[in-house]
């Protein structure tokens, strides 16, 4: 029999408690955050949970005690996203950024044991909710993708690089810590540069209608980097990721206008950075089944 059926009341209590934590915060709790003003109050369910389950003390009533957990939940998650998306905050501006983050947390709960993964759904959420992007939906979405890739790259594994002599014949893959992007907007410049929303708009206006921006996000010597790629370089890397074969990658990208010298320089750079590696081979688990 499952724990669910063994302990239905305890499971129900924990569900109710979690639902209370995930409600928006109001009043004094909200004033201690950067969230924009929002009228309202916690739901009757929140109040009923506190009244029914939690003891009051002379110092704090049941509602205040539940509210301590409620506000800590929000403060912790808001801080985590603020830390992971600093450039997005800059280009959206304070009000729009915090409105977006609050909406995201209301709709997309954390599904990971670690706060490092909290922002995993933010780029897609932005794409689905362009009205939350302060008039810059494409730029904001692409910048969010870039910033989350930096978080993701931080803890991705490293696989053995393929020696130069074996590149032509070996099965190839790209390092798991390497992420490739073809963006409409200069997300790398937005990430590095503008101090605020209007400066971001100026930058976007200058680049409006320009060619696609190809980027690599990767880790090297324990630091994350963002590097712009030539279109041909991006195409070959992307083809290697898809086919696992250097010959097929070069065939499929034969239309690229790159010269032999350029291609040679790209390969030299990739091998120096160790980007071309062996594909993942499934390893049998050494731990017993639970």
């Amino acid at each position: 029999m499952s724990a669910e059926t063994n302990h239905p009341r305890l499971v129900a209590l924990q569900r109710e408690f979690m639902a209370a934590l995930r409600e928006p915060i109001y009043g004094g709790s909200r004033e201690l955050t950067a969230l924009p003003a929002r009228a309202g109050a916690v739901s009757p369910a929140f109040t009923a949970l506190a009244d029914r389950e939690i003891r009051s003390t002379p110092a704090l009533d049941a509602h205040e005690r539940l509210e301590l957990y409620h506000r800590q939940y929000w403060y912790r998650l808001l801080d985590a996203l603020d830390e992971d998306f600093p450039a997005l905050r800059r280009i959206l501006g304070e009000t729009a950024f915090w409105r977006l983050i609050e909406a995201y947390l209301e709709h997309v709960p954390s599904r990971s044991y670690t706060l490092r993964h909290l922002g995993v759904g933010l780029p897609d959420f932005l794409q689905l909710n362009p009205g939350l992007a302060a008039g810059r939906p494409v730029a904001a979405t692409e910048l969010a993708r870039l910033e989350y890739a930096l978080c993701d790259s931080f803890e991705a594994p490293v696989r053995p690089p393929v020696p130069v002599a074996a590149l032509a014949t070996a099965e190839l893959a790209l390092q798991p810590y390497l992420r490739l992007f073809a963006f409409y907007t200069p997300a790398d410049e937005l990430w590095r540069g503008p101090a605020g929303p209007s400066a971001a708009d100026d930058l976007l206006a200058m680049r409006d209608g320009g060619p696609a921006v190809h980027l690599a996000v990767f880790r090297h010597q324990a630091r994350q980097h963002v590097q712009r790629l030539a279109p041909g370089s991006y195409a070959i890397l992307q083809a290697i990721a898809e086919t696992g074969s250097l010959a097929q990658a070069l065939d499929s990208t034969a239309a690229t206008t790159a010269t032999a010298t350029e291609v040679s320089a790209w390969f030299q750079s990739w091998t120096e950075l160790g980007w071309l590696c062996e594909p993942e081979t499934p390893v049998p688990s050494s731990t017993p089944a639970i």
Partner: protein
Amino acid sequence: MNHTCFTNFQSLGIGIGLRVPHYGHILSQRPTVDWFEIISENYMVEGGRPFEVLEQIMAQYQVVQHGVGLYPGSAQGLNRDHLRKLKKLVQRTKTPWISDHLCWGSVDGTYSHDLLPLPYTREMAAVCAENLRIAQDFLEIPFAVENVSSYAEFKDSTMTEWEFLAEIVERADCGILLDVNNIYVSSVNHGFNPLEYVENVPHERVAQMHIAGHSRYERFIIDTHDHPVIDPVWKLYARALELCGPTATLLEWDDKIPSFDEVHAEALKAGRYWRHNLEHQPVEAARVR
């Protein structure tokens, strides 16, 4: 006096929590530290800088794993994938024992990232004990469960927190990570005598202790780990050492983290209480250590 079976027959002294702002100092200066406590979830990754640093730390120091995400108080049971990842890390770090908090924090796969309170009932104790038994059996090393700071009590509770803790560790046959700061914080928030707590836990099961600072507000205390340890917590710690004997102790400092030397100096204050305790404990007990 505690039983060494709860520490895998290892005796450790005063340790420090391994935190990112201190990586550079530790790797370049190689300070003399008895052991480092790592947050398991920070290293349950496939690679990257956390692993690279951990490998270097493990080459020189004993590492002990402390978790924040197993949630043995989860009424739906443990997350099996989490447990598998934890075991992989245990095999890598060779931690002598492992600890996590007596709390819950996720339901239906949604995570709060907090250490949430439990009703102190027989049914809840049975759930926690069952989860801890599964974890300890699967991980194949001693498990120590830590008392958390709390800000709410449930009307359904039928026992004190220390009775609840004692019942769980007896039923699960596991150790205790006694956080004396958490006892102090909860005692103020709930209005109980912290000494009564310290005096009534099963001392022979205390494998490790935590000390830390906290933030005091007008009507409550929040366990923030961002200040030095206050005198009443040192006094509780001294009493806990009297009752449990010299026990591996870790200073937690997780926010507004000062320099490594400042954190280390604060941790080493615990050594005074150790020395006093060793000088005053019975000869037989001293020989056991």
